[in-house]
C-alpha cells in the first residue's frame, strides 16, 4: 500500500527525469550528425564561417550533385552493394551453422574456435593487406568484387557466429526436441521450428554484415583498382578535396547505413537472444 502511494507521488517527477534522460541521450547522438549535415550542405562559406551559428542557413545540395555526376560514383555504389551482398550471404551461410553448433553443443575445441573468431577482430586488417593482396593476385581475385566480399566476410564472420549463437540460444531447445518427437527429422525440425523463430535475429545479423562491409575502406581500396567500392572511391577522392566536399562525402557514407538500420530496427534487439518477455 505504502509503496503504491509513494510511486504515485513520485511518478510525475520521475517521468520527467526519465524523459529528460532519454531526450538528452538522443540529442547526444543526433546533434553531431546534424552538424555534419550542415557542414555538408552549407557550402564553402559555411565551413569557414566563424563563429558558427549551427543554424541551417544557406543550404545547397550542390556538392552532392557534383558527387553523383562524377564518373564512377554510380558504378562504385553498385560495387559496394555487390560486395556487401556477398559479405551478407557468405557470413550467414558460414556463420549461422557455427553459431548453432556453439549454442547447442559442448565439444572440445569450442573455446579455441571462439578465440579464433575473436582473433579476426583483434588483428589490424590493414597489416594483412600485403600478403592478402599477393595471394589474391595469384588467385585471380584481385580487383574483383568477389575478392572484396571475401575479405569483408572475414571481418563480418565473427559477428555472424557470435550473434547467431545468441539467437539460437534464445530458441528453446525443448521446441526442437518436441518436433523430433512428432516425427520430424533433425533437418526438418531445424527448418520448420528453429529458422522461423531465429529469422528476425538473422536478418539483424545480415544488417550488421552489411554495415561492416559498407564502411570498410582499407582492404577495399588496396584490393581493387578499377572496381572500387564507394567508400574506397570516396576516400581517394575526398582526402584532398575542400572541406565542404568532405562533409558531403561523409554524409553520403552515413546515410545508407542509417537507412538500413532503420529498416530493421525492429529485429535489431533480437540479436543477443529473443526477448523472453
Amino acid at each position, binding site marked *: 500500500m505504502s509503496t503504491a502511494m509513494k510511486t504515485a507521488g513520485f511518478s510525475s517527477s520521475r517521468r520527467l527525469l526519465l524523459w529528460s534522460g532519454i531526450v538528452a541521450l538522443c540529442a547526444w547522438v543526433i546533434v553531431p550528425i546534424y552538424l555534419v549535415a550542415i557542414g555538408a550542405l552549407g557550402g564553402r562559406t559555411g565551413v569557414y564561417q566563424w563563429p558558427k551559428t549551427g543554424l541551417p542557413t544557406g543550404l545547397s545540395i550542390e556538392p552532392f550533385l557534383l558527387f553523383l555526376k562524377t564518373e564512377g560514383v554510380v558504378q562504385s555504389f553498385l560495387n559496394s552493394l*555487390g560486395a556487401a*551482398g556477398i559479405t551478407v550471404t557468405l557470413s550467414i551461410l558460414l556463420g549461422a551453422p557455427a553459431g548453432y553448433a556453439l549454442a547447442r553443443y559442448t565439444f572440445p575445441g569450442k573455446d579455441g574456435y571462439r578465440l579464433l573468431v575473436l582473433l579476426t577482430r583483434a588483428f589490424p586488417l590493414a597489416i594483412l593487406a*600485403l600478403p592478402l593482396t599477393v595471394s589474391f593476385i595469384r588467385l585471380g581475385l*584481385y580487383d574483383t*568484387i568477389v575478392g572484396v566480399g571475401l575479405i569483408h566476410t572475414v571481418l563480418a564472420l565473427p559477428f555472424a557466429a557470435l550473434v547467431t549463437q545468441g539467437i539460437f540460444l534464445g530458441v528453446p531447445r525443448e521446441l526442437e526436441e518436441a518436433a523430433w518427437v512428432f516425427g520430424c527429422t533433425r533437418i526438418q525440425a531445424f527448418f520448420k521450428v528453429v529458422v522461423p523463430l531465429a529469422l528476425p535475429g538473422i536478418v539483424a545479423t545480415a544488417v550488421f554484415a552489411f554495415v561492416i562491409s559498407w564502411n570498410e575502406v582499407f582492404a577495399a*581500396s588496396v584490393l581493387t583498382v578499377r572496381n572500387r567500392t564507394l567508400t574506397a572511391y570516396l576516400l581517394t577522392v575526398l582526402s584532398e578535396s575542400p572541406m565542404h566536399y568532405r562533409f558531403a562525402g561523409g554524409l553520403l557514407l552515413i546515410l545508407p547505413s542509417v537507412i538500413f538500420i532503420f529498416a530493421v530496427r525492429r529485429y535489431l534487439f533480437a540479436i543477443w537472444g529473443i526477448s523472453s518477455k
Partner: protein
Amino acid sequence: MKRLLSFGILATTVAALASPSLAQTVFLSTQLRPIEEATVVREEILKGLDAPVDYIVEEPPQFAVRMEAERQAGKHTISLVGALHGELSPIADKDALEPLDTLAAKLAEAGMPQSFLDLGKLGKSSQQYIPWLQATYVMAAHKDALKYLPEGADVKALTYDQLIAWGKAMQEATGQPQIGFPAGPKGLMARYFEGYFYPSFTGGVVRTFRNADAVAGWETFKELWSVVTPNSTNYDFMQEPLAAGEVMVAWDHVARLKNAISAAPDDYVVFPAPAGSKGRGYMPVIAGLAIPKGAPDVAGATAVIEHLTKPDTQLLTATHVGFFPTLNIDLPTDLDPGVALLAGAVKATQSAEDAVISLLPVGLGDKGGEFNKVYMDSFQRIVLQNEPIADVLKSQGDVLAKLMADTGAACWAPDAASDGACPVE
C-alpha cells in the same frame, strides 16, 4: 531473408556485368587526386590520345602496398604510374621499373633540363622515371598580416629573424600565434627540415646533421615555434587553416596551398621561404611517370608519357593544378590568378640570390620513410618535448648514420659529394 539474399546476388551480378571490360591503359597516380583535378585529367588532359586511358588515383599508402603486391605476385594490372620521386624510389630499388632511356633521350632533345632527367635515374644507370611535373614549397600570407611585418623587412626576401619578429608582432596584436606549419601526420614537415631548415642553417642535410650550426639553427627554430600555432601538429594541408582564418602565415607545398589561394587570390601574398645563416634553402618536388616491369600495355603507357610531356599538355596541366612543367617553357599569361601567384613565388625562390638548392634524396630506396622519421623524431624531441638539443642530435645522428651506412646512399646537394655512403659528421 530470402529476399535479402537474392537481392545480394542480384546486386553482385549487376555489378559484375556493369564493370568495364575494355582493354584500357590503366594509369595509376598518387598526384592530381582531388575530384576536380582528376576530372580535368580525364576529360581534358588525356583527351588527345587515340587509345582510351583509365585514370585512377590512389592514396600513397595504398599505392605502395599495391605496387609491392603486384611485384611479388608477378601479375600486373597497371601499365603506367604517376607518383612522387620519393614514392617511386622504393619501387626502383627493387628493380621493378622499365628502363626509359629512349624516351629520356628524346625529351632531352625537346628541352627537358638534364638535371631533372638525372633525378629520374634514382641513382641507377638507366632512366627509371620521366619527370612529369615539378613544384616546390613556398610561404603564403593573408594580406592582413602584412601590416605587422617588421620595419625594413621585404616579404619577398625574409630572414628567419624577421619571420620570428613578424610572428611575435602578430601574436601580440591578435592574441594568438598566427604562423602555421603542416606538421600533422600527412603533412610534409619532414621536407621542411630536409629542404629548408637544414640547408638554410647548415648548408647541408646529412653531413651537417649535428654540427654546431645545426644546434644554433634548432635554437632559432625553437624561438620561431613559440609564435607558431600549436595546432600545427594537426595540420596536413595548410590551405584549410589559411582559408578558415586559423593562421595568417603558412609554409607548405604549392599544391597544398592552392585551394585557399585560388579561391581568394586577392587576399593573399605568396613568397619564398626565409633565409638562415647559410642562405635560402629550397627543395624542388618532382612527380614522375614510370612503367612497372611486366606492365600489360607498355606501348600504350609510352604513348601516354609522350603525350603528357608535350609542351601543350604540360601547359594545360599547369593551368589547372598547382604543379608546373618540367619542360623548359614559359607559362601562359592567362593563368588562373591563384596559380599565377604561386608560380611567381616559385620563380622568386629559384632565382633568389642566396638560394641553396636541396635535391631530393637519392639512393635511399625504401628507407625514405625512415629517413624522414629521423628529422621528425628530432623535431618532436627537441621542440615538442623540450629535450636538450645536443643530446637529441647525437642519438638521432647515430640513427641517421646507420641508415646511410645500410643504404650506402652517397651525399646529394647541398652536401658535398662523398665516396660511398654519406657520412654524418
